[in-house]
């Protein structure tokens, strides 16, 4: 086993943790979820930007940051076959099948490709929509496309970062949708929501809502998962002037105050959308990217219907349990599977309920010993001892677990180290956790079966709207006396029931 240098530093600089304990955690993760690398032939560089399985058994299409799309057959065998489906694309960072066309979004256009003679190579690359423009900055990535229930293609557009050789352009830092192109192959752009920064993942939930992930930086306090609806503003000021153009579905937010918390700003700009989930920086990754709902109905383990989010820097997959309260989405973030070989940018379901993970760290660096690649996670069938869900109740939270727990550890309030904090919306790069206030577990009542516990919280920091409640629980034990695999959860509160 290779131990990562960063992890060694972490271990050495952290006197409370015994190195052997951490190694044990690494071993434990692979006991439940095994990582399998997909071998690539010489000359094929899979800096994965987009990933889609099928059609057909063993088939996966991968788009790369270099601009290729590879068709992989016999993906899960020891000798997968690679065919260059297309080259010449500009940073295609997502793939999606729709009506026999393979859709991808390049920096400057939504495109669709088709192999007309069945030789495994694309014969047509059609421009579906190029209603947005590029200034020529490296950071002008486009993510998506994802199709919603009405047939719109959702795309999120990065803002530039630095020089703009061809001049400043509209719609940077926006979520757009492109109307269904099935009529004549052209789709019209609808700029739906603004104020995004580096929205590296966009996904349509199985029930139809659209979510995106954003990356910490200026005007983005930490990484976050947001529910997008038309008209939403997410707080980044870069592209708000585009809101004055008639096709914008977002109103111009006026001047965004620099340095207040998000909840405070929302009082002034009511359509500022609070994140459904904050990912506290470094505790829950450093660069949230692609995501996928667990639609395997148990085939991938005990987390059915939850959301899995990849993290580029931490080379990890995180887990999010979402709930809708008073019509608003919120949720809790947990670690799920770490120590992949390279930064994880994309994930999608492959055959037999394996989770394909597309990897690249070029330009940003990541944990792990590789610079790019394609791997998959397979559930070994063994149930990991984890917090399964974390849901709000009137004056606290109910945690549920994947395995029956030792009720005495569950019911000891001392076993819950709780914190409560939020983030600033401001121009400097990232926000520290601000406005920490004390929270205590007043009472902890476990269910008879030991599968859940209800925590009543008290103290000045308890149950604040727009804040993160952090639970650190290393002392909880399963009925068999084991600690939890990942003994912490970060719950974002937007609404109380």
């Amino acid at each position, binding site marked *: 086993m290779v131990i990562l240098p960063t992890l060694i*530093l972490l271990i050495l*600089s952290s006197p409370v943790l015994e190195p052997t304990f951490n190694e044990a955690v690494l071993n434990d993760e692979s006991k439940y979820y095994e990582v399998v690398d997909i071998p690539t032939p010489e000359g094929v560089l899979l800096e994965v930007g987009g990933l889609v399985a099928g059609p057909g058994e063993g088939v996966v299409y991968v788009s790369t940051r270099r601009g290729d799309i590879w068709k992989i057959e016999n993906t899960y065998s020891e000798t997968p076959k690679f065919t260059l489906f297309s080259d010449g694309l500009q940073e295609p960072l997502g793939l999606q099948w729709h009506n026999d066309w393979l859709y991808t979004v390049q920096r400057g*256009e939504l495109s669709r490709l088709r192999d007309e003679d069945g030789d495994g190579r694309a014969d047509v690359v059609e*421009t579906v929509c190029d209603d947005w423009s590029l200034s*020529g900055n490296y950071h002008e990535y486009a993510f998506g496309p994802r199709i919603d229930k009405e047939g719109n293609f959702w795309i999120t557009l990065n803002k530039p970062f*630095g020089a703009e050789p061809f001049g400043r352009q509209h719609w940077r830092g926006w979520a757009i949708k492109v109307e269904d192109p099935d009529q004549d192959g052209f789709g019209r752009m609808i700029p739906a929501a603004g104020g995004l920064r580096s929205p590296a993942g966009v996904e349509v939930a199985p029930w139809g809502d659209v979510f995106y992930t954003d990356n910490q930086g200026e005007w983005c306090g930490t990484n976050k998962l947001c529910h997008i609806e038309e008209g939403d503003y997410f707080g980044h000021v870069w592209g708000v002037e585009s809101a004055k153009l008639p096709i914008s579905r977002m109103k111009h937010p006026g001047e965004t105050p620099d340095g207040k918390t998000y909840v405070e700003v929302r009082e002034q700009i009511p359509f500022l959308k609070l994140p459904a989930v904050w990912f506290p920086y470094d505790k829950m990754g450093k660069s949230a990217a692609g995501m996928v709902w667990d639609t395997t109905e148990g085939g991938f383990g005990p987390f059915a219907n939850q959301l899995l989010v990849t993290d580029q820097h931490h080379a990890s997959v995180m887990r999010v349990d979402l709930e809708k309260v008073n019509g608003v989405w919120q949720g809790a973030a947990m670690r799920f599977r770490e120590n992949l070989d390279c930064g994880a940018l994309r994930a999608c379901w492959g055959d037999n309920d394996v989770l394909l993970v597309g990897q690249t760290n070029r*330009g940003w660096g990541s944990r792990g010993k590789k610079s790019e690649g394609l791997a998959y996670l397979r559930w070994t069938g063994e149930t990991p001892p984890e917090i399964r869900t974390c849901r709000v109740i009137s004056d606290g939270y109910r945690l549920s677990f994947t395995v029956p727990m030792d009720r005495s550890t569950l019911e000891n309030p001392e076993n819950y180290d709780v914190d409560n904090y939020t983030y600033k919306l401001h121009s400097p790069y990232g926000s520290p956790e601000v406005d920490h206030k004390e929270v205590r577990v007043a009472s902890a009542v476990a269910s008879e079966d030991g599968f859940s516990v209800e925590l009543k919280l008290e103290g000045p920091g308890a149950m604040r709207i727009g804040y993160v409640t952090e639970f650190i629980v290393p002392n909880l034990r399963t009925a068999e006396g084991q600690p939890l695999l990942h003994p912490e959860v970060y719950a974002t509160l937007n609404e109380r029931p």
Partner: protein
Amino acid sequence: MRRCLCLSLLWLLPWVLLTPFTGVHVSPLFAQDSDLSRDDLIRTVRDAACMKCHQGSGVRATEFAAVDPPLILRASDRFRPEWLVRWLTNPEAVEPGTRMPHALGSLPEEEREETARDLVHFLFARDRINDLEWLPEPFEESVLEKGEELFFSIGCAACHDGDQISSQMTDRTTIPMLTTELQNAHRWHPSGRMPQIPMDEEEARALATWLVRGQSLDGDGNPVVDEVQGLRYELHHRSFHSCDQLLEAEPSGGGHTTVISNAVRPKDTDFGIRFVGSFEVKNSGAYTFALSSDDGSVLWIDGEKRIDNDGSHGTVTKRATVQLEAGWHPIQVCFWQGAGPSHLDLTIEGPGIPQARPFKAEELRTRSRVAVPAEPLFRPDPARIIRGGSAYNTHGCNACHEPKALPKRLSWSEMTSGNPGCMGEEAPKGGVAYGFSPEIQSGILRLLTETEFVAPEPEQDAHWAINDAGCLPCHVRDGAGGPNAEINRLFRGTAELGDEGRLPPLLTGIGNKLRPEVIHETVAEGLKIRPYVLTRMPAYPQPVAGHVSDMLIAADNEPPAPPHTPEFSLEARSAGHQLVGTDGFRCIDCHVFAGQPSLGEPAYDLAIMAERLQPRWFLDYMKDPQSKRPGTRMPTFWFPDFALYPDLLGGDTDAQVDAIWTYLSAGSSAPFPKGLIVNRNDYDLIPAAEEPTLVGVFMTGLSARVIAVGYPERASIAWDMENLRLGKAWRGDFINVQGTWAGRAGALENPAGDDVLNFPPGMAVGIVETPNQTWPLDPVRDQGWRARGYRRDEQRNPVFRIQGSEGVSVEEFIDPVIRESGVHLQRRFKFSGETMPLGLMLRLAISDQMEELGPRKWRTEEGVTLIVEGAAAEIYEVDGKKEIRVPISAPGTVVEVEVQW
């Protein structure tokens, strides 16, 4: 005193073997043979620089003129004062055999050194030198080995004896002075006596360090190590993930610096630096250090890690406060950079340093090997300067050295045998004594007063020229020159190619082998096309380079060779293509092609032959290589009664050689020969033989949405998706996409090849109200056009598609076509739709002048030829310029246009 011209047994070698640098070029025949030839006498007159003082005129003056000496303005940049005093006191004693006359020879011996010292003060004052202090120069021990390696491989040793020159340089100069001199030879040697061997600063410094290494040894020959200001640093030419990883890696190179920053970085991305040494604080107390870096860095003080700013990140500053005693403390800083911009700085703040600032040079020190010039402080003395100025004129320094003045000496016509003057044993006042024998004296007088001037043969001129320029220590011409046995061993290269793989090429017949402009360029710029020969061709200053080239060209074209021009045909080109590859004579077994390695030895690049060689020489050489290069390993492929490829061009030898020439004439844009294994690095894209390679990039001058297409025929285009137009075309190499594929990327890319053709601005299709209306250049969307993408045809060439507002759609096919001058492009426009909008036109070219070459065939002022087929193209006058336009009215119209450039 009689000057001995015969200094050692060395002089008994044929004169051509003598290097021009080690001494006077006087034939040994002089001293012993009274039957002097005219050439010997001319050589004596040139080497003694007689014409510098005694006037001549016309051709004779040129023929007898000496090679100019080094400039001595800025002598202070080359010489240390004490050495210069010794030199001027008696040049012969410092450098036996020098051409420098003993200018102070007419002075009493005891006055010479004083006068020399006066001269030095004068020369240094002229350079505006004030006090000069001579500081120890730190260096990395490892550069000595590199310097020695360079000295004996790049060509220095062909002219200089390693031991002699080292001992000279140890006394004469310093590492920094010599580093500059080695890189700027022409600044002091306008005659090309010391030509410029191409080298970078690091190499020059390594050479200089090795040459003056005597300064870094103490009296017992032990290395001198001392404390010096600043820190040592080690460089790594790769990326890291952490400083721990860097500490375990083996450094490649390093040096000394007084600044802790990324200024010493070996490149802009993917590198690491470790700084090590000590720093001093004057007061005890708490000091705050701020370490700022992009990407990772770590600071150690007194062996303890104090700031950990490691990791891949933008500029991040981390601080630590450390309690320090007054005095010196060991420090180590590690820093590494992956992709993107880099930054490093370290500041200190504390007692006595109220404001955070970087370390000052004097606060840093390290132990290092040093070179110590043993030289007292030099302080200009006004009295000496004045006396020196006068001595400069009195002793005739200004006859040869700047500012030049022609001393009042007898002109040739006034001289008689009764008065030998400076030719005799006694130096006339303020002059020099050459001590020529009576035979030479009278011979010289006879030569200089001869009434009938004999113009030299061109070959004789050529020989003088290459001898003066110092070509012959390395090169052989007509059996003369070349290194002697001892020097010969020093020439190194690739063993597989034998002597051809290590020795500089023959100069015999060079004037009709290479094209004249190539000879000029080679001599003037030090061009070297055989990378495997380690010796570097030096560059010569003008007008020397031009003179040498002209003389060689004149000598080898007397009488002129009959011209030869191979005829182009597609059949010939295709046969040539085959013959060069593995289905033919397999030239690529040994020869590099367009920078791509051969299958075996790395001989001369095939793709540059046609631009360098003359076709007549190529034909003769290919038919009989041994006739041009005796002993060459180049095989013979054609035999009088037998053709290896009888089916190609009827098996005709001349036709096959010419076919190869035709194929090679496309240079590096010729399609690769079959069998070549193309060396793909990560970022130089090379299209495969079967289909074009496409890559999406930002491109300078076009837009941020460009599809670059590299065709197997070695033509490339850039299609601008934003502006829906063919933007550029070029030949040869396709594109380097490091700016798109490395790190965060986002750089604007450019064509990698040659002959970049920029197409007229705007789309090729447009709608106008009148045929000669100004071409619409509004954004394509505003004109009603939009991108429809592209499809791939049977060759997988992209066919670009655009769609107009009235149901019209246009497909543009772009295919490479082969013509005599190389690869060109054919554009084909196909219009479809129910009806064509009124005023639909194609615009194909715009220029101030269009020369009509035939029906629907024009050439622009810029030299682009357009041949239009399929529709009525015409020249329209638009806004004072001429434009080729084609009205389009019928659905289904196809317009073909061949673009040659």
